[in-house]
């Protein structure tokens, strides 16, 4: 007779759709987020095929504009932002701090329904006329001139904002009040720290974009003039308000991925993370300073020179905590006991890609260079390195890392390593040429381009097809493993966090007895319960240099 756990505790569609179990809600999110990923991915594929020839291969310029807009909206608002927080965060955060559930389970379920409602508005917009404003919804193009279905899309993103807000609220409160005995702030796993930092952005940033898009929607419906210069409004104000959220939103996407990486690296190097408090602190620093840099998206709108100088300076400051993280991860590898398991491949891939993405950000934050690079393919390549190379690699890596916990099954390791390598290579081939394109001056959002850019575009498209394969593979074998995979056991890697102390899959109430935390995070040396041979004095063992 199989043990009872959260998956088999109750049966039937109602027990899923009305569940308040954070683990089941995480799976609901997993399904819906994956759906939007493939919607966005389909658009991306069409974009890349279209750009094979200078004149455009596939569609009219009008359709092309809709494709990249819908790609952006689906990927950013409905995949990247909820991906790690709402799937992995939802599943793991309560377990990692030793709680039975989030602080407000019903609100958690509500936020999934809000997500669905927002998502259906957006899908409605996609299927009736599409959306051609760019994901940035710049006014007055979106509020006056566009002929596409802007209103439902704006409403959809507006509604979806509340889903993020409620998730963030739930996380912050949970971390504050629901920790198990002994789980002090500096014993929290770094993943929890990163989720906490992300939630700060959810709480303080998301309402601003909600009201901004609402105003833009009202402007479109009732011909008001908030952002319409012909009626005395100011389109630049829209950009200020938009980026007040949307720049921190970049950190919403990357911070949780950084959290995942901070979990994977110590596990597969079998040693404590280097500079725990600096990694934790840098998450918070990124969340806070990330709010003070938004107008670096607007250096060339005619904003004041002084404002531009301030925002450029602050943008450089926000680069420092990210650099600190990278240095600390790299140092964690030093004298570790490193294995080649799939999550580790993703984590190392993440560092490499994030490094390139982050360093090219320095180019863009530089006022003088931004004059040339702004709104070119350089920007596209930069943020795809951060978001796909960073956030998606982190998400997929985390999914692999915790897959045994979520499903209780192991995935086929060999296939998974192949997929990780394919993803890494395909990604670089897709986006590295775009840096060069951007440097040569190819503007973004172009349905057709001068012929001299063709070679690099073809390379990029070739890479994209490899990348697409790289995404299909995990999709297939992970689904396969749910049924046919090997049984994982509670702690296959082994990891040190509380989530590995409970059976896989965890019982509905997460722990059979409330755990008490008596150890420091990632402390492999003092954990006889993991069944590993421990080292004595640090400097004597293992190291030969």
């Amino acid at each position, binding site marked *: 007779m199989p043990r009872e756990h959260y998956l088999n505790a109750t049966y039937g569609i109602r027990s899923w759709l009305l569940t308040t179990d954070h683990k089941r809600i995480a799976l609901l999110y997993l399904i819906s987020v994956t759906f939007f990923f493939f919607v966005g991915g389909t658009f991306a594929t069409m974009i890349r095929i279209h750009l094979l020839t200078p004149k455009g291969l596939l569609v009219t310029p009008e359709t092309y504009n809709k494709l990249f807009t819908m790609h952006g909206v689906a990927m950013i608002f409905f995949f990247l932002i909820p991906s790690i927080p709402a799937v992995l965060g939802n599943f793991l955060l309560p377990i990692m701090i030793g709680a039975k559930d989030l602080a407000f*389970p019903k609100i958690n379920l509500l936020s999934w329904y809000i997500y669905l409602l927002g998502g259906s508005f957006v899908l409605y917009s996609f299927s009736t006329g599409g959306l051609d404003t760019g994901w940035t919804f710049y006014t007055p193009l979106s509020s006056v001139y566009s002929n596409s279905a802007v209103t439902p899309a704006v409403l959809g993103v507006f509604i979806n904002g509340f889903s993020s807000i409620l998730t963030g609220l739930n996380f912050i409160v949970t971390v504050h009040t*629901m920790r198990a005995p002994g789980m002090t702030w500096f014993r929290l796993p770094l993943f929890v720290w990163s989720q906490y930092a992300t939630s700060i952005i959810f*709480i*303080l940033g998301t*309402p*601003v974009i909600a*009201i901004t898009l609402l105003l833009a929607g009202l402007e479109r419906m009732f011909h008001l003039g*908030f952002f319409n210069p012909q009626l005395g409004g100011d389109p630049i104000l829209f950009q*200020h308000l938009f980026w007040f959220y949307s720049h921190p939103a970049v950190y919403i996407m990357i911070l949780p991925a950084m959290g995942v990486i901070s979990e994977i690296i110590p596990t597969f190097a079998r040693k404590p993370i280097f500079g725990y408090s600096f990694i934790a602190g840098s998450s918070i620093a990124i969340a806070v300073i990330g709010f003070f840099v938004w107008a670096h998206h607007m250096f060339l709108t005619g904003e004041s020179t002084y404002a531009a100088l301030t925002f450029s300076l602050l943008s450089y400051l926000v680069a420092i905590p990210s650099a600190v993280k990278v240095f600390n991860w790299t140092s964690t590898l030093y004298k570790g006991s490193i294995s080649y398991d799939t999550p580790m491949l993703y984590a190392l891939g993440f560092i490499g890609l994030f490094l390139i993405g982050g360093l090219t950000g320095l180019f863009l934050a530089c006022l003088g260079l931004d004059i040339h690079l702004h709104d070119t393919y350089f920007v596209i390549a930069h943020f795809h390195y951060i978001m796909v190379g960073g956030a998606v690699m982190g998400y997929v890596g985390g999914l692999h890392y915790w897959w045994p916990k979520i499903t209780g099954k192991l995935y086929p390791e060999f296939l998974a390593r192949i997929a990780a390598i394919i993803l890494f290579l395909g990604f670089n081939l897709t986006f590295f040429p775009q840096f060069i394109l951007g440097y040569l001056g190819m503007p973004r959002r172009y349905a057709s381009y001068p012929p001299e850019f063709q070679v690099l575009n073809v390379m990029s498209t070739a890479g994209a097809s490899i990348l697409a394969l790289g995404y299909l593979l995990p999709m297939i074998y992970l689904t396969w493993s749910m049924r046919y995979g090997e049984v994982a056991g509670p702690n296959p890697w082994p990891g040190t966090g509380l989530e590995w102390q409970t059976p896989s899959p965890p019982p509905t109430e997460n722990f059979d007895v409330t755990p008490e935390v008596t150890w420091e995070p990632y402390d492999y040396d003092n954990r006889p319960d993991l069944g590993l041979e421990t080292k004595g004095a640090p400097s004597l063992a293992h190291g030969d240099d």
Partner: protein
Amino acid sequence: MHRTGELFGQYKTLEQQRETASLGMWIFLSTEVLFFGGLFMTYTLNRSTYPDVFSEASKTIRLSLGAINTVVLIASSLTMALSVWASQAGKKKLLPVFLIATLILGCVFLGIKGVEYHDKYVEHHIPGWNFSFEPSSDVATNAHTQLFFSLYFGMTGLHALHMIVGAGLLIWLIKESLRGRFTPEYNTPVENIGLYWHFVDIVWIFLFPLLYLIDRH
């Protein structure tokens, strides 16, 4: 999750549950601050761009109504604070009285707001709908006045919407308090809805000078 009495299964003690709910409410309110913040930002910029037009337009709103409403709303905040006190002190008879007083004051506020909106309708000051502004027929001024009224309706409308939600919550509270559900040990809903109500009051405290008072002489 199972529930024993008023304690939900994910918590260990009522105390923990109360703290959690209170923190959750505060964080929700901080979200609300920034939600209204976007509107305040739009207002600030436009006021600084078109100070004269905005002051001209604000003169057409009836100050007396706004002032009465301010008093009414602050009074309702007071009765709300008294309700929270009553629930904490275990005055089960008094609690519904204060709650009903709060609700009535809230409705008076909404009623007066309705009168104001009606005025605006009569004067054709509703943006996007037969809008016209007499003192000047100038296109630009007209557009900028319309901007003022868009903000006026946006800000007070969103505020009124919050009031309506608050009134709904109050009705639920009154019903539960009549059943005697709230005790000194368990009064979180009263407290949290109280916090919400005070927040709505604070928004109005800023809306009133910004929309009615500045440069009106």
